[in-house]
């Protein structure tokens, strides 16, 4: 089950609550303002790194670029919209928006 998160983790609880329900095999995709959760050097980075030990985390390249986020947490994989489509084709989707 692919979880998708579109809110900034600094203003909304979506990412935090999504992380309560993800199981090991569940990838997480950050898009729209959700991509701020992928940025390196934030207060959230330790938690994201912890998550990366058990789950694949993806961030949407187009949304990162639009927001000027170039430096992402090591281990987070960047995908474009085609990659977003591939992820949804591979997994059922649980939109945590």
């Amino acid at each position: 089950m692919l979880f998708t998160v579109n809110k900034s983790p600094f203003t909304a609880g979506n990412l935090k609550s999504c992380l309560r329900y993800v199981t090991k095999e569940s990838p997480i995709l950050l898009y729209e303002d959700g991509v701020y959760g992928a940025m390196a050097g934030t207060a959230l980075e330790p938690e994201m790194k912890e998550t990366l030990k058990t789950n694949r985390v993806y961030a949407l390249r187009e949304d990162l670029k639009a927001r000027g986020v170039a430096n992402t947490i090591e281990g987070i994989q960047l995908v474009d919209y085609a990659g977003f489509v591939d992820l949804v084709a591979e997994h059922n989707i649980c939109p945590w928006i």
Partner: protein
Amino acid sequence: MGEEQYDEEQSTEVQKKFLFVFKRAPHGTIYPYEGLEVILIMAAYDQVISAVFTDDGVYCLKKGQETAAIGVKEFSITFKVLEQYGVEHLYVDKEALSARGMTEADLVTGVEVVDKETIANVIREQDVVLPF
């Protein structure tokens, strides 16, 4: 359009698991109300329907809501009768509830207060997840 009509007979032979995730409080936005509307319509299609209430969505089930003075519909009572519509389970996240200073006694009847692992398993089993 019109040329691409769905074949209702064929579609309804398929039974899927639909999960409604209520994460938002009532009245502040229309999302939970509209989610409930979808459930009521979907109930006619012989699908497997469940709902999860977490985050501020647990407020949807709070007893004692009186909305007359703000001029919107009070719909917590409708959650109570969902069982009659064939909705199998209404799961409420225990931690989300206690974080908001509530217990099962504060909620309308017919719900199951469960831990996050139970909800994680419920989510994992679904074909379609709809967030409201």
